[in-house]
Every structure is written in C-alpha cells, then in structure tokens.
C-alpha cells in the first residue's frame, strides 16, 4: 500500500533520514519504534512532503507521491495524527472534526462523525469545548478522530500514547485495533514499544535516520537487543 524507497530527508544541512526503506501492506498495522531523535516523525512528515524528500521515492497504491503537496496527500486517502496532536486550539471539538472532513464531499458527514463519536464518546460530550482546553488524552482522541473524518485508507499515528495515563493508553491502543478492523491500514510510530509491538503485525526499528531491524511484532518483542534498548524497565 505504501512503499518508502531509499528516502533521504534533510533539515538544512542535517540529514535526518539516511535512506529509509520500508513498506506497509494493505490492512496491516505496522509500527515504527526508535529512540528520541531517530527520525520517526520526520518520516511521517516526509510522506506529506514537509520536509521534502530529497532523494528516494514514496509510492502509495502504485502511484509515486513524492513531491505531491501536503494538502493533496490527504485527498489520496492518507491521514495523519501528527506529533504533538496539533489540535486547532481555538476551535471547538466539533469544528476540529469538521476540519478533518475537509477532503470529503460532505455527503456522509453525519455518519462519519457518528462513527468517531462511537469510538470516542468523550468527544461527543465535549463537542462544544475548545480544543485547547481539552485534557491531553482528550486531545489525542480528537487528533485521531479528526484524522478519521477524512475517511482514510491509511492512517499515520505519531506517538498516540505520549503523556497519557496507562489506562488511557490501553484504551487508545484498543481503538487503534478497532480502526484497523474496520479496514484502515495503520502506520504507528511509538515510544511505547511494548504495546506497539504487541498490537502490530510487523515492526521496524529506526536508529539515527536508518532502519536497522524489522520483523513481526512477536519477533521483535522477543529480540534481546530490542528488549535491552526499548523494553527494559518500562510499562
């Protein structure tokens, strides 16, 4: 579904991605783990052309989308819940969801928002509250809900569990699973390697702008290197 081939991305002179190769199959949950500053968020943003990929290709459903402007990517069926959630702070929950529905023709808006409210009943209770005043967990739900409003076939999630209480983390992961069961392919960037690898079909490990390891979620969970680097002491 999505193929990333030898992608190099730069911030000025700094090379943040040094030739990344990975692929995501239709219907999968694929996770990408790695330490702070490895380049995970950069990879998700590179899919949206911001920053631009300087070398390599990004292919989505057989179509080369390298260089397609960000606002057109979402119209191809890729949505992102970005790092830091980036809720529109001075818009209500409802308006944030309306923004998410921008790429659609609006004919299924009521059904789509119903679906999001069913996933996150909390959002329905807070529909007229301003995004900036939501709690961290609520903001995360809204970020995912907003992404879902564009009816994506591929959903990119950047650290949805960051800063959330363990109970909420579990809820979020359950919902990601539900979303995937509805037929949405999920690419999940996570620090919470344990939960992510348990949930994902496959995973990749990124170190310093390159992929160093890949395998099924189970394999990676059992891998001693990974246990040492990402799993010891946590959760």
């Amino acid at each position, binding site marked *: 579904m999505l193929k990333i081939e030898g992608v190099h991305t730069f911030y000025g002179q700094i090379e943040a991605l040094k030739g990344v190769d990975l692929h995501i199959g239709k219907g999968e949950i694929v996770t990408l783990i790695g330490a702070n500053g490895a380049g995970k968020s950069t990879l998700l943003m590179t899919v949206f052309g911001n920053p631009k990929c300087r070398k390599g290709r990004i292919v989505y459903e057989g179509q080369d989308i390298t260089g397609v402007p960000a606002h057109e990517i979402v119209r191809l069926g890729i949505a992102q819940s970005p790092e830091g959630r980036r809720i529109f702070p001075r818009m209500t929950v409802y308006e944030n969801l309306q923004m998410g529905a921008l790429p659609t023709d609006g004919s299924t808006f009521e059904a789509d928002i119903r679906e999001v409210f069913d996933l996150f009943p909390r959002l329905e209770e807070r529909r007229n509250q301003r995004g900036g*005043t939501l709690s961290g967990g609520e903001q995360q739900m809204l970020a995912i809900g907003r992404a879902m409003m564009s009816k994506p076939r591929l959903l990119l999630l950047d650290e949805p569990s960051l800063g959330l209480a363990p109970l909420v983390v579990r809820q979020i992961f359950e919902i990601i699973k539900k979303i995937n069961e509805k037929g949405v392919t999920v690419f999940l960037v996570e620090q919470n390697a344990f939960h992510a690898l348990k949930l994902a079909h496959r995973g990749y490990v990124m170190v310093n702008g390159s992929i160093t390891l890949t395998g099924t979620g189970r394999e990676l969970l059992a891998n001693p290197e990974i246990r040492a680097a990402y799993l010891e002491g946590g959760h």
Partner: protein
Amino acid sequence: MAYFIQQLINGLTLGAIYGLIAIGYTMVYGIIGMINFAHGEIYMIGAFISVITFLVLQAAGIGFVPLILVVMLIASMLFTAVYGWSVERVAYRPLRRAPRLAALISAIGMSIALQNYVQLTQGARVKALAPIISGGVTLFEQDGFAVRLSFLQIFIIILTMALMAGFSYLIDRTPLGRQQRACEQDRTMASLVGVNVDRTISTTFVMGAALAAVAGMMVTLYYGVVDFFIGFLAGVKAFTAAVLGGIGSLPGAMLGGLLIGLIEAFWSAYFSIEYKDVAAFSILVLVLIFRPTGLLGKPEIEKV
C-alpha cells in the same frame, strides 16, 4: 448635549470606515503574523478606483444614484481585490520563509511603490468629486444647534454593519472561514488536513482588500476628495484601531475602529482639530505600552 450627539454620529461614521480598514490588518496579521504595511495604500487605491468608476459612469450619462453606488462598490471591491492579491504574490509570498525583517522591508517598499504608482498615473493633485448622496434629516434642535444625520452617514453606517455582520458570519460559520482560522492557528496542521494554505492566504488578502476598497469608496463620498497620500494616515489609524481592539481579533478590529473614530471626533470637537491625528498616535503608543494585547486580544489559556 446636542453638540455631543452630533459628534457621536460623526465619530461613528468615521469609526465605521476605520473599522473596515482595520479588519484587513487584523486578518492578515492573524494568518501570516505580519503587519501588511501596504494595506493603507490598498485602501487609497480603492478610493481612486471608486472615483474613476464614478467618472466613467458620469461620462456614460448614467445618473441613477443607486445604480452608481452599486457599480462603484462592486468595481472598487473587485479591482482593489486584484491589487491585494498581487501585493501578496509579489511582496510576501516569496519571503514566506525569510526573516520577518525582510518581509517588513518588502511591505514598506510595496507601500511606497504603490503610492508613487498612483501619483504617476493619477497625478499628485487632489481629485474632487461632486456629492452623490446629499441631504439628510435633522434629528432635533437644542439651544439653536441642530443635530443632523445625513443620508450619506446612514448609508455608511448601514453598509458597514451589513458587511461586518456578513464577514463575521463568513469567518465563524463557513468552511472558508474555518480554513482561514485553521491556517491562523496552525498552518502545518491545516495543510495536513487538506487546506491549501497558499490559496487561503491569498483569499485573506483579497477579502481584506475588498473591505478596504469599501472604506475607500466611503471616504471618497464623505469627504469628496482623494489624493495619493491618504493611505498613510488612514492606514496608521486603522492599524491603531486593530492594535487597540487586539490584533488578530475580528470583533476587536471593529470595536477598535469605532473607538478611534469616536475619539478622533470628540478630540476634534472639544480640544483641537489641528492635533486630531495626535490622538490616534498617542493611543497607539499608550496601548502598546500598557496593553499590547489590546482590548479583546486577551490570549486564552491553552494547553500545548
């Protein structure tokens, strides 16, 4: 009392005009975080276009006043919008990622260029216009002073209120307005959900310019004269209005405009008309010192 009420009416009229210009400052500031210093010139161009339209209509022998007004309004909004759009393309877009100082200098350059362009093409002399809307009503008389409300003032106040109401609706309730607010709040995120940021910024300049054009037309009707230099003072006052109301806030710009208009009217009436511009400038300084966020620009508490 009668004198006071007369000044109130005059101040409201003036304030309506400043408010319309101030909206352009505040919206552009909201979306690109920069003061569009060429906005006063856009307003001046709007005034000129309305004069030219009037002269063309007159030459064509059209004398039906409502038709003249409608055509003037549409023509000045339309053509001025093209100028607003071009200013963004030429002076701001290439510098979107440049340091702010570069964009500021570019804006000032644009402002001087537009002034000189109008001076060259239209001449430096004041252009005068015969009154189009005349007459009015006497509200009441007291101690030999008659409080007058001219039809032109009614026209200006009603048109401004209608435009402001329509505009607030557009920003608060329509998809276009939501896209503008999204760009204002987080441009990167806006692009991720599918907002064409460049186009939205262009639209903002176009809308600001169209409102400034209406203000330009009103001033032309109100004072009956225009010259290539009117953009400067009106620009600074409208900018003051935007800052006073809280830069970035739409209701703030409207409120600020009204207040500046009122202050100017009362200042001229009770203190000194020669120094009426000092009032606006003093307010700008005072606001910047004591309440830089303006009256309605109180930043909300936000979790990031």
